[in-house]
């Protein structure tokens, strides 16, 4: 499995509000046997842990999803979201949320935090740490924490105009997903198995995490144009109401084709590396990482629940910024060369000093052994 398969989802006309374009995805039939519920944490899930030395680790978890799968499919027809008959949602202190995907109560229920799984995946990309200096690395990690793990993300309500756009958006019947564009850059994709789930989870989009790129685009981007329908009525083209109706339907189809082929192409066609995080009955929960290719392609990290045929029943993506892509690319290269800077420089076809500069530029300077690097640079200069 290398691609995201959006089979079974039909693109409907987009709705535009300011710089935000929302493209609804509609399913004819809900995915049988899987439902998502929303789980709300008390006090907005904010909690902090004292680390002892007068620092506190505070984290904010807006909501979690609970996946619920049954073999029978009977539950798929149930109306509304239920929290599995457990009554009121209970408070879960953050310090116990060390596992992002976690079995809850009954056998067929899994709690996972949207995007955290994938973000974890991205951040932890190689952060078992460099194997060659494992001792140093682990000592450092214990003492100072995992410094490269700080990534900026914005809650949806901090992205200008997004909350308003989501409020005035008109849901389609049977809608199971949404592609969210900010300044016509794909910001996030969100797909759920059932239309009723979507109706209830639509407001959670405003509490989700979005990358810095999305935030900046929303700030500086201008309103995007609406793709308005155009019917060509050249001489003799349209002779009756039937012709007119055909032309109108053609407009709808043309939009779907244009959108899927142009605007969502990178999401559909990029090959991702998938890693299965959990298997639940016929469904599998994957997280995926992009190839970290450079050269303008949009890159998403995210997570997906697929059914037996590999089609996405649940999908959520997080758009990486150029900086983040560069960082991922660099880490990949470093790992390929077993964290040897000299060999990495050779592999990249550049100089040792340049690699050091790039590592520092990517905010990973903390990884370098300052003494060794300084010595090597001095030697290079002298020779």
């Amino acid at each position, binding site marked *: 499995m290398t691609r995201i398969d959006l089979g079974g989802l039909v693109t*409907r*006309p*987009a*709705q*535009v509000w300011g710089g935000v374009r929302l493209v*609804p995805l509609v399913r004819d039939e809900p995915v049988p046997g899987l439902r998502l519920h929303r789980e709300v944490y008390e006090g907005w899930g904010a909690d902090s842990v004292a680390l002892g030395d007068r620092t506190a680790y505070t984290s904010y978890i807006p909501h979690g999803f609970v996946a619920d799968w049954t073999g029978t499919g009977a539950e798929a027809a149930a109306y509304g979201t239920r929290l599995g008959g457990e009554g009121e949602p209970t408070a879960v202190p953050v310090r116990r949320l060390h596992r992002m995907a976690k079995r809850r109560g009954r056998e067929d229920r899994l709690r996972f935090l949207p995007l955290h799984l994938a973000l974890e995946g991205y951040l932890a990309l190689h952060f078992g740490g460099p194997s060659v200096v494992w001792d140093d690395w682990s000592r450092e990690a214990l003492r100072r924490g995992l410094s490269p793990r700080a990534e900026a993300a914005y809650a949806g309500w901090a992205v200008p105009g997004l909350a308003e756009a989501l409020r*005035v958006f*008109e*849901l*389609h*019947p049977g809608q199971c997903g949404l592609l969210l564009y900010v300044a016509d850059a794909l910001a996030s994709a969100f797909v759920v198995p059932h239309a009723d789930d979507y109706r209830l989870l639509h407001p959670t989009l405003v509490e989700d995490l979005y990358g810095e790129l999305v935030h900046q685009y929303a700030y500086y981007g201008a309103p995007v144009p*609406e*793709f*308005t*329908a*155009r*019917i060509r*009525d050249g001489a003799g083209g*349209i*002779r*009756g*109401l039937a012709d*007119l*109706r055909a*032309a*109108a*339907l053609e*407009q*709808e189809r043309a*939009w779907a084709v244009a959108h899927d082929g142009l605007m969502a192409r990178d999401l559909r066609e990029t090959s991702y590396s998938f890693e299965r995080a959990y298997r639940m009955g016929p469904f599998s929960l994957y997280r995926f990482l992009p190839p970290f290719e450079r050269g303008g392609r949009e890159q998403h990290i995210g997570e997906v629940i697929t059914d037996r045929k590999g089609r996405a029943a649940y999908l959520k993506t997080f758009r990486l910024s150029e900086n983040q892509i560069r960082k991922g690319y660099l880490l990949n290269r470093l790992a390929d060369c077993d964290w040897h800077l000299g060999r990495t420089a050779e592999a990249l076809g550049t100089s040792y000093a340049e690699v050091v500069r790039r590592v520092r530029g990517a905010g990973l300077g903390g990884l370098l052994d300052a003494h060794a690097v300084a010595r090597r640079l001095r030697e290079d200069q002298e020779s």
Partner: protein
Amino acid sequence: MPPVCRAAPTTTAARNPLAVLPRPGVSVPGPAAGLRCDFRNLPLQQRLRCSRPHSPAGVHAHEGEGAVSELVAAEDVLLFVNAAVTATGQREFRSSAAEQRFSLAFLHEYVRVNYRPVYAAALALDINDHNAALIAEHLLRTPKEAEPGEGRLIAARLALLPPQRVYRLFGALRAAGVNNRRTRAIVRAWLAARPDPALDAVKYRTGLKAALRHVHARPADPETGDFLFAPGRRVRYENATLDAHRRAHYEQGALYELPFTVAEGFAAKHGIPRAVFLERIAPRMTRLERLRTDRAADLSVMPLTRLALYVLALPFAERVERRAELTAALRAAARRAAGPYAGSWGRVAAVLDDSFSSSGSAVKRRRPLAVALGCHFLLEALASPGAYTPLWTSGRDDPLLVHPYGPTPLGLRILDALDTGPERLVIVSDGWDNAPPGLAGEVLRVWRSRLDPERATSVVHLNPVYDTEGFDVRRLAPSVPTAGIRDAEDLAALVEIAQFAEGRTGFAELRAYLDRRVEQFLKEAAP
């Protein structure tokens, strides 16, 4: 195309960016699509002076280009009428209250400066109370530009407004320091015409006091005067209402002789249980108060839109249970509203918007949907028996169970409506067409230009929502006349106004129409 005055080309343009803008008093060419001048991009002073056939500055600039300026004027006036019918300064689905008020304030100033007589004449049309009060305020604030006959129009309209709005208007005039002779005369005349000064004194005490002080008027009688300005002076009042108010301070029985809103405060003070209070005060309630407190309202006398709002506020189960009763009440109200036109419209098809956006806002809950529902029943009454086809955008077909949900595929619905071959097609929608966007306009355009150039079918778009950015209600297509609508009852009158919007009639006809309305309005107002 006749020449349109442009700013004289200057060489200073490069140095001074403002120099490229037209001079005041000069008409600027309109945007490509329409003839209306695009005043949104000009500095305020120039906005107020462009395209004005009535201003001293505009008269000279407009010689020799009558046709264009007339069309511009007609468009501006219709734009203002649409806004004055729909906008209430309250939050809508897509714009906030502040945006609404800001947009409306600009529009009022623009029309008042450029088309003063028309601005005053709007008081005679079926515009909403909010705008009527605003127009009266703006006219009274600018006495120097007054035209003859304005005072009578204002007085006649104030007599129709609900008293609380008039008192609020007087308060606004006082806050703005407007105290010219005409204002004083109008306020005095209005106060003198109040049927029961004692009731006003009790119910609108602050407003009445402020108004009397502001215009230096005498209270209607000495007792009311003492009640307002020297409440401790009398031990008892001869007037029953005033005396009831005095006694209600310590006697529970007396508060049931007072108006509902005043009695409510006393009831709270005496700690009377709400149920008991509502039971006993019921005969003193107005119709709306009864409706609001959910006392058994008399459905047979309610106006159509109010009734539609009432129906939409009921839960589905109750709507199903009372289906026969509610449908009968709606049909009866629609027949009353249709009046002599009932059954005279021939084959009618309607496209009615029940998409999610018809839910309105927290302050105008389900208003657009209620208007659509009212129009549904009214059109049913207007059409020949059995010749009416309603099409809701959601595809549902039970008008009593409509609820706002889903997108707005107007284009395809309009096609369905045209399939039935109607003589009239009425579209009730907020003008946002999003599945796919713009298809409704395209369908209407192609159909008008290719399939029905003889105009065998008349199409009208009625829009219950004011669009702050366009200073007008949103249009579907330039070829389709659009009119703002607030109450479904006004449908027939609005369709009449909408014909001016098609651009086939000029400003002269529009002025004649307005003059006719003003004359009729003043005749009705005169005792």
